[in-house]
């Protein structure tokens, strides 16, 4: 689930290439590093850290909840660790559903719950060499 550095094109491609049995809809969310400005300084990259054991357990729970609540078939989540530069992908969620509505709802649920419950932390490295800590807007 966690990979070092940005999510590669091969992972992005492979995520959509696999069709689950009974799948009629596949929804994908790709999170990228936004070119934010913090106190007049441009964000160069974000360095991600995590307590991965907890994050992986929580993510499994969230996916199970997605199955229970929306009837999705399955879901996969990838997140970067280490430095990811502006524009590069750092977060990928793929949801497989029987129909588009459950796939849409399941995707939104998993993305939001992951951001809220999974222990991942982002250190925004600024152009002047200082840093600030990323805060999620829920």
């Amino acid at each position: 689930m966690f990979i070092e550095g940005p999510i590669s094109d091969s992972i992005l491609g492979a995520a959509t290439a696999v069709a689950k049995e009974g799948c009629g809809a596949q929804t994908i969310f790709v999170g990228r590093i936004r070119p934010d400005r913090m106190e007049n300084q441009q964000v160069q990259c974000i360095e991600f850290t995590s307590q991965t054991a907890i994050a992986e357990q929580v993510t499994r729970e969230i996916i199970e909840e997605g199955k229970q609540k929306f009837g999705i078939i399955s879901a996969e989540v990838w997140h970067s660790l280490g430095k990811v530069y502006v524009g590069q992908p750092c977060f990928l969620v793929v949801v497989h559903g029987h129909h588009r509505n459950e796939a849409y709802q399941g995707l939104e649920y998993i993305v939001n719950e992951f951001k809220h419950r999974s222990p991942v932390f982002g250190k925004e490295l600024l152009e002047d060499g200082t840093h600030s800590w990323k805060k999620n807007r829920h």
Partner: protein
Amino acid sequence: MNYGSKATTFSSKKTYFFKRSITIQHLFMPLSEPLFARVVFCRASPSNRSVPVLKKTAIFAKQNSGEFLGTGLVPAIRTRRQSACLFEMKVHVNYYGLLTDAASCSSEVVTLKNGSTLQNLQEQLRAKYSEFAPITLAFFVANKRCPANVPLKEGQVIDCMPPFAGG
């Protein structure tokens, strides 16, 4: 470690010695029974700065030759430092995200009173690091998020986290 020259409740004619460095095994100290401590007795020559404290008891009667004499429970007459071992515990705290900046470290050992809870740990950390004040902290023990009233144990590893910011 002066275990206590007043610990003369064992009556016998023979005097034994224990070495300062190895006599009291902290791991064996029964924390639930603070009136007693389990110790390892060794015979030591007067030349190696051992401290004579206890006289032989029936427990050790057959073990009067050789270096190692055995272990046993003895009344706990303690120095302040020894009392600390009995009434305090240490836990290992890992910090994440902005807490690593606030604490200037990613982990540390924190000493708490025996019987402390996560709430006590949180109060102690907030008192130690003023930068923690505006931060909502989450605590995980054995990879599970725990409420504030959970009692802590000696040697536990605790993950202390600020609000998450992935995605």
